[in-house]
């Protein structure tokens, strides 16, 4: 049996949970898929999950599971996995999964294959994951004890393609005993930084700079291109980490998500955490000197070359018109 551990927040299912269900169906083949949701007052999330083509939805409802803590989750999941005995466990590779799943794997002493983008079925399953910032793909198989744990990269599977069932799956309560003293972390409520002054989500055109821009003094070149294009200036994370542009201009999983008509990526490699924030753009132009850069996998138009030669040429072409 393949067990999907869904993620919920305040009783609402995280949409990536459906992506994990889709991956679990592919992994399971003929084998059964069951789902599990944990937290406090999560009947809404369990009901939504029971629409999936799964044999059962297990619910661990415990007041010490809200708010989320890695200690509380690992304690509850050790008991749930012990009771259900899955051969494989599938989760979405969210920030929360990054936080507790390696701990769960270590406590179980079981393999964890993180951030997978594909599944290779066969006698023994294998999983595809990106390494070297997307420059290579490794096919990896779990070794040793069962269950193996697999986390699925956000967006690698389509949640809306996860098989639904005609009737709702049975919802089953699972008991967990949690001693309050095992929970060492005391989380405060999530918050956002003060409202962002720049809302890039409404921009029609965006010129985004990455580490290929080399230094703060060259940002002005990208800014000139943005001006002639009537575009907003944005950046990949390292540019904001270095303080070359303010954080509020960062695109990606920890920045803004945008969907402009035109997105010009200058010297950006195309790491998944960047791409999730901009792949919804209608037309993507990538300028990068590395022909193997993953950004060319999402670009509509690509120019392989030095941005310091290409950007001035594009600016003068636009000024001609």
């Amino acid at each position, binding site marked *: 049996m393949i067990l999907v551990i869904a993620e919920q927040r305040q009783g609402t299912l995280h949409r990536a949970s459906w992506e994990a269900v889709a991956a679990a169906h592919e992994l399971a083949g003929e084998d059964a898929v069951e789902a599990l949701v944990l937290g406090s007052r999560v009947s809404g999330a369990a009901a939504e999950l029971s629409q999936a083509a799964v044999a059962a939805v297990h619910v661990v409802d415990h007041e010490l599971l809200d708010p989320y803590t890695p200690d509380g989750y690992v304690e509850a999941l050790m008991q749930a996995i012990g009771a259900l005995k899955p051969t494989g466990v599938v989760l979405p590779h969210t920030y929360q999964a990054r936080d507790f799943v390696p701990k769960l794997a270590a406590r179980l002493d079981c393999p964890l294959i993180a951030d997978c983008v594909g599944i290779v079925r066969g006698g023994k399953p*294998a999983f595809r994951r990106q*390494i070297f910032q997307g420059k*290579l793909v490794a096919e990896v198989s779990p070794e*040793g004890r069962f269950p193996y744990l697999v986390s699925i990269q956000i967006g690698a599977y389509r949640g809306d393609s996860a098989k639904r069932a005609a009737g709702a799956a049975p919802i089953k309560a699972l008991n967990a005993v949690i001693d309050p003293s095992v929970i060492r972390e005391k989380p405060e409520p*999530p918050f956002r930084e003060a409202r962002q002054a720049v809302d890039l989500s409404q921009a029609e055109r965006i010129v985004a700079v990455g580490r290929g821009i080399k230094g703060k003094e060259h940002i002005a070149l990208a800014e000139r291109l943005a001006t002639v294009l009537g575009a907003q200036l944005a950046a990949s994370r390292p540019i904001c980490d270095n303080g070359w542009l303010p954080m509020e201009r960062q695109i990606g*999983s920890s920045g803004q998500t945008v969907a402009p008509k035109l997105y010009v990526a200058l010297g950006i490699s195309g790491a998944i955490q960047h791409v999730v924030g901009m792949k919804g753009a209608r037309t993507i132009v990538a300028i990068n000197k590395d022909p193997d850069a*993953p950004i060319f996998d999402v670009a*509509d138009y690509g120019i392989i070359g030095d941005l310091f030669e290409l950007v001035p040429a594009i600016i003068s072409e636009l000024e001609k*018109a």
Partner: protein
Amino acid sequence: MKIAVCIRHVPTREWQPRVDDSGRALREQDASYEMNEPDAYALEEALRLREKHSGEVVVCTAGPSRAAQVLREALARGADRAIHVEDDRLVSISTDSFVVAGALADALRDERFDLLLTGLQSDDQGAAQTGVILAERLGLPHATIVMDVQVGDGALRVKRELEGGWFQWVALPLPALLTIQSGINQLRYATLKGIMAAKKKEIRKVTPASLAAPRLAIVTLDVPRKTKKTEIISGTPGDAATQLVRKLKEDARVLA
């Protein structure tokens, strides 16, 4: 406060990895190496905490002999001493996080650190597991993707990054382990004085008695398959610019 920082020696970002004939390993002969970027931020955070609260910063790497370079660099930036868990098997890309975290745990356990820092993930493997597994092996609480660290009396308050611009403060008792996100601070680089001072600092070598059994096996390595048809525009910069602007106007219709 006694702080450990675990640092990985990774191939530089510019390096184009090439698969060898076995299909499961890399040709690393032409690689050059650097400090894993999030680990550099972890080191910087440790140095800042020492400046504020005094104490000691010990850097540690698990890797082959070449990895000593990353320890010398960390010492030059200001770390007090270093531990090198040296084993030639701690390089290959089939060495998973369990093996690395296990080797680090054995080497660090008796030092009884108040705080351990690692980067949130490595630039090469990107598994994002070593720090959290290390915490579990040492029986410590942890927090991941940390963007701010406040030290109180026997406890920490840390700011965790969540998705899409959200954050959360979490309190946890010391000793603890944190995985640090890039951008938490502004990095300092080694000065000539620092490089000279580093020559006198200790790098203690530890040979692991045994390594944990790997939990993962590489079946194949490959270059990614392209899924989208990208139109590559070639020519001189001037020609490419002319073509691009024409296509954006006439085909994509995103420019007036």
